[in-house]
């Protein structure tokens, strides 16, 4: 059921209760969790936080905790699965779902109690959900019964009703077909809605409990969605503008000099920033070599591309010694002019969208971090391969680490995460280069396909869903740019399916699909396609991730699964 007033129907209901918060392992969910935590602290609500990475995790943790908690909050998980069916909760358990996964499961949406959805009241999203009447019909069950009765009644009597019952049956069949069609249309694409942290921030704002810190987390949540290409640029800008409004409202009091805040307070700035990965914490050169837009535009994996990158730097007039230096040690003059310099030369080199609206936070004199870097860092902490043991299972300490990294922007964990993020980006860059050089991206007709071999040096990085997803976006964009013009026109409309080893001993691989480059709505059709392909070939797959476009399967079944996928999608 949709909650109309989250303050009254959600927050006031859980005050003085114990709550269980189940948090999916992505940055957005962690940010939402951080905001919720501080709200709970204000009202002395006792809570338990449990990380869940997959659907099976959700079921297991629920079974373990169901005795102790009757109020359960799901952050970025659960909206797209039928909770009542999978968890089979007893009557006194209530679920509050704050999730950005779409489409919302219809049972969750239409059930009268137990499952409550907290959404941003976005007309577009609500319109997408089919009407109640189309999906459920009151007389459905009656008819079933009367049909059963019919058989036992006398034949003569039955004939008289024939006409009417036939009509009814026909109508019902038509209705059922239409229902199937509507549900199919509804569930065809999976995509992301408003991010969870923004919804929770909204809740905090309604209760007048928002402050700069909460705002920063909301910013990180929105940036995470954009950075991992879960939402298009349009939706990101809408989100950013909303946050900017909040920012100026929170900070207008200390704009004049009389009551400006101490430098030791956290300060958030809105700015047009360069879309380069981690450049404040790396050298400019490295960062240009590892950001998605510059990697694909210059084709840095080729010699010519490298030359072009050097040309670009020469055009800007930044000496090589300067740009290979850590950003902190670059000339102050260069640093100040960097944005205009980059922008001017970017035009000449046909680099588009190199600037984007973003936020940065400052704390004291030396801790300045921009939102996208923070997201890189926390993501890296979440998918830290050092903590993963051989089974691909972690002991959840990555969750605690990531929360710690988010807690303060000056936290040492944040620094650690930045270093990890650099390693991951290097792995991405190296692999993008080799994949395109070797021609490992193949066109299978309706989609592009590529796979990461078990022996490759960095395969461990790619067994994590978020990182695999980021890699496939890098790869797709670079691949499309590397093609000739005629081929490019075609490839730009093709989605990409990528396969990576997940658990070598068990012979399990992870498969992810991403939407085509040209599509800015980021709607993903692979969720359903994967399910159908698996059903058709009876492959041993497990659709365990919350994101339906990422699945795991047995290696042996892979080829027939891909064949089936081709037939389905053509």
């Amino acid at each position: 059921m949709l909650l109309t007033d989250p303050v009254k129907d959600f927050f006031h209901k859980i005050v003085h209760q114990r709550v269980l918060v189940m948090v999916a392992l992505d940055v957005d969910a962690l940010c939402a969790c951080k905001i919720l935590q501080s709200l709970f602290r204000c009202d002395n609500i006792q809570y338990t936080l449990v990380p869940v990475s997959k659907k099976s995790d959700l079921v297991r943790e629920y079974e373990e905790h169901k005795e102790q908690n009757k109020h359960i909050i799901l952050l970025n998980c659960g909206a797209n699965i039928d909770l009542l069916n999978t968890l089979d909760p007893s009557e006194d358990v209530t679920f509050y779902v704050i999730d950005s996964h779409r489409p919302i499961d219809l049972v969750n949406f239409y059930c009268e109690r137990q499952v409550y959805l907290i959404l941003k009241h976005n007309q577009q999203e609500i319109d997408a959900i089919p009407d109640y009447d189309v999906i459920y019909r009151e007389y459905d069950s009656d008819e079933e019964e009367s049909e059963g009765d019919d058989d036992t009644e006398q034949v003569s009597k039955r004939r008289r009703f024939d006409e009417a019952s036939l009509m009814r049956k026909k109508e019902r069949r038509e209705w059922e077909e239409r229902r199937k069609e509507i549900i199919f249309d509804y569930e065809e694409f999976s995509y992301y809605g408003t991010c969870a942290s923004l919804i929770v921030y909204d809740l905090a704002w309604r209760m007048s409990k928002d402050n700069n810190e909460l705002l920063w987390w909301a910013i990180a949540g929105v940036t995470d969605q954009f950075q991992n290409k879960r939402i298009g640029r349009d939706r990101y800008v809408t989100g950013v503008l909303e946050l900017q409004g909040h920012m100026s409202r929170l900070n207008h009091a200390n704009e004049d000099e009389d009551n400006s805040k101490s430098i030791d307070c956290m300060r958030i700035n809105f700015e047009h920033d360069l879309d380069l990965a981690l450049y404040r914490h790396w050298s400019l050169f490295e960062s240009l070599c590892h950001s998605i837009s510059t990697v694909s535009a210059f084709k840095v994996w080729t010699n010519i591309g490298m030359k072009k990158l050097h040309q670009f730097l020469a055009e800007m007039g930044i000496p090589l010694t300067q740009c290979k230096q850590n950003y902190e040690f670059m000339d102050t003059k260069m640093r100040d002019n960097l944005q205009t310099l980059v922008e001017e030369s970017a035009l000449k080199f046909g680099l588009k969208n190199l600037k984007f609206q973003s936020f940065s936070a400052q704390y004291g004199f030396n801790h300045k971090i921009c939102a996208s870097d923070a997201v890189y860092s926390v993501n890296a902490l979440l998918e830290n391969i050092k903590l993963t043991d051989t089974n691909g299972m972690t002991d959840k300490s990555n969750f605690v680490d990531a929360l710690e990294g988010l807690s303060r922007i000056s936290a040492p964990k944040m620094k650690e995460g930045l270093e990890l993020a650099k390693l991951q980006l290097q792995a991405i860059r190296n692999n993008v280069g080799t994949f395109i050089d070797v021609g490992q991206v193949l066109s299978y007709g309706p989609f592009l396909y590529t796979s990461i071999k078990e022996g490759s040096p960095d395969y461990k990085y790619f067994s994590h869903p978020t990182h695999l997803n980021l890699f496939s976006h890098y790869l797709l964009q670079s691949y499309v740019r590397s093609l000739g013009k005629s081929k490019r026109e075609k490839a730009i409309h093709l989605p990409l399916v990528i396969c990576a080893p997940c658990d070598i001993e068990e012979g399990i691989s992870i498969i992810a699909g991403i939407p085509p480059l040209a599509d800015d709505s980021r709607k993903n059709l692979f969720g359903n396609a994967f399910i159908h392909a698996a059903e058709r070939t009876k492959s041993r797959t497990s659709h365990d991730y919350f994101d339906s476009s990422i699945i795991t399967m047995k290696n042996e079944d892979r080829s027939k699964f891909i064949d089936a996928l081709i037939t389905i999608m053509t």
Partner: protein
Amino acid sequence: MFGEKALELIREFNRNKDGNLGPYNEDGVRQVLEEMQVLYEANQNDVAQLVQDTSDQTSLTAVQIRHDSLQRNKRCLLAYLYNRLAKIRSLRWEFGSVLPPDIKNNMSEKEVQWFTRYNRSLANYMRSLGPGGLDLTQDLQPPQNVYIEVRCVEDRGELELNDGSKVLLKKNSLHYLPRSQCEHLIRQGVLKHIT
């Protein structure tokens, strides 16, 4: 020189004043006592001589010095023992009635006896306060918040709180619990306080 060994005991205690309780130096104490015994006997002999022969006063200074050394040794020993007891007492407030084994191993037998007796009288006193007793060892400083945020370090099964509700303590889950309920678990190292 007389009194050297006793001073060594004091030094040793002073060295790990801020750390944990050091091991009880039984050997050192025994040596001091032996020294005192020797001094006492020597003094006894000289004094007996002095009493017999009042004309010969030569050994009087020696007696005086030995007596002072005796006094000093006694003082040092008492200081050593007293300060150890004071430390043990503060440990009782820090760790509760059950001490960790590594600290317990550092205590002498008599100290253990004293500790159990102290425990008993403290418990008796606390029980006599108000209806149902009052745990004095809690909240030595006024707490800032009734609830604190803790992270569970090991699997511990269910924890039942005062209000009857239960919490499942699983490794790496985070909880927001009443401070009074989890303070002892933090001391035992099951939970970790997140600031």
